[in-house]
């Protein structure tokens, strides 16, 4: 399998060409915003560095969040467009599972709480066991509810929200404090997903934040 992985879910814009069990090439830039402008030339660069063309690809891996809604849509629409044009599958990987996978690679045998700052005093989080299997699925909660959900167990912390949790529950060590994992991790996880997965969809965890309009409507007689 030759896989192209892309991440536009947070501050980084990253692309990686993965073949067999290793990366042929990868590019990462910390850009904050502007993924829509940069992504295609970055993909072009990483393919050239890997000595591949689009027609060599057999799978697309894309980061589906949770993260920036707009950033995730840049990645997912690009991945689905490439998949349609090349007639190959696209698979989604979450930021939380990738952050947890990186922590588990450094500290085998532990469980890990991946936790990302979701703003508005909330956190995206999911708890994984030593095999990377979710014990608590991704959710968006405030810090108190995040802790209530995971309980007192012995787990590592990772992600941009790790310090928020550590401040409330001392004794848990922090592995990393990033909002997204490295692109090679995403590529490896995407390559390991089973065939026939459904098309990647953004994982927002939050609603669209729209309220039915209470604007001025005159009463009706009939």
């Amino acid at each position, binding site marked *: 399998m030759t896989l192209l992985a892309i991440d536009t879910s947070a501050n980084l814009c990253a692309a990686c060409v993965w073949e067999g069990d290793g990366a042929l090439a990868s590019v990462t830039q910390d850009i904050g915003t502007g993924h829509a402008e940069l992504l295609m030339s970055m993909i072009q660069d990483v393919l050239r560095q890997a000595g591949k063309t689009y027609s060599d690809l057999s799978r697309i891996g894309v980061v589906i969040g949770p993260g920036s809604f707009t950033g995730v849509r840049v990645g997912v629409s690009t991945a689905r467009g490439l998949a349609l044009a090349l007639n190959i599958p696209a698979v989604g990987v979450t930021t939380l599972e990738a952050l947890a996978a990186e922590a588990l690679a450094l500290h085998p045998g532990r469980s890990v709480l991946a936790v990302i700052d979701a703003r508005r005093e909330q956190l995206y989080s999911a708890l994984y066991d030593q095999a990377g299997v979710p014990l608590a699925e991704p959710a968006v909660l405030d810090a108190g509810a995040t802790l209530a959900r995971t309980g007192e167990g012995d787990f590592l912390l990772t992600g941009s929200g790790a310090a928020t949790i550590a401040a409330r529950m001392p004794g848990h060590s922090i592995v990393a404090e990033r909002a997204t994992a490295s692109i090679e991790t995403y590529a490896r996880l995407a390559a390991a997903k089973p065939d026939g997965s459904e098309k990647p969809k953004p994982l927002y965890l939050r609603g669209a934040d*729209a309220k039915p309009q209470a604007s001025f409507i005159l009463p009706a007689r009939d």
Partner: protein
Amino acid sequence: MMEPIAVTIRVLGIETSCDETAASVVLRDENGQGTILSNVVLSQVTEHAAFGGVVPEIAARAHVEALDDIVAAALDEAGLTLGDIDAVAATAGPGLVGGLIVGLMTAKALAAAADKPLLPVNHLEGHALTARLTDGVAFPYLLLLVSGGHTQLVLVKGVGQYERWGTTIDDALGEAFDKTAKLIGLPFPGGPNVEIAARDGDETRFVFPRPLKGEKRLDFSFSGLKTAVRQAATAIAPLSAKDRADISASFQRAIVDTLDDRVRRALTRFRETFPDAAEPALVVAGGVAANQAVRGGLTALCARHGFRFVAPPIKLCGDNAAMIAWAGAERMALGLSHEDPMHFAPRSRWPLDAQSAPVVGSGRRGAKA
């Protein structure tokens, strides 16, 4: 102006600037004639109905889930594969940026993977050039663009050559229809429902203002009309079905009269500017162009002044991707392209006529109108 190339080109178009997810394949033959090979439009009306208007985040979410299947359906309906296409065109602005990103990134991916040119298209240019696809109208012509986001009189001199003669100084015409509908309790989308209610109404019961009527400049204003409707309706609330019909009819009458006055002045200016034009034409475009009362008023006006009146078929009045594919084909035939389209950023604001002074709401993102 450059001579267009004399070859057949097929363009895939994508439109996601508001609440329609759309894709289309259009063929432009060696003589510049257009044929729509497919035109697929998925409306999000039901997703937004509860909110009484388009919610940007809901729209963006719906586009990203639907667009790849809509593109596949448009290719399928045209009986073509991506390999048979000569270019991919996508609306890159103006519009809701969340949706624009989905359409433009999908187009970038399709173009890159299939090794085809990418054509970022201005949504307003799509509306402006539709009459050339449907009726082969020759340059120059006068365009009245009336939609939920825009109300403009534009001189169309050529592909990419536009001169804005007038624009709204407050609400867009489609917005005025939608707000009136909401006020009197007609369901979303308001424009078509005002038209339906007006059919049984008495258009003389209320006398609403004809904003800017008689003024020499060619601009529009609808916020005063909206206020007058609210005052009149509030005075007689609770509203009966007859009240709603009469308000709708009287409102629509005011709109038709206002357009008659504003557009008549534009027709006169067009005559003065192009005294030798053999068959001067007024083209109407945008969602409000589907309104039969508006069409009727403009038809009569053009007949009085010796103008050809061109209105696209109803399904090409609202947002669609055929107009985007066609605008892309017209640009491609002339060799007009944006530099480095793969780096093109979606633009929430993108005036057709970059020279005209902003009339309202200009900021970091550019002129609103």
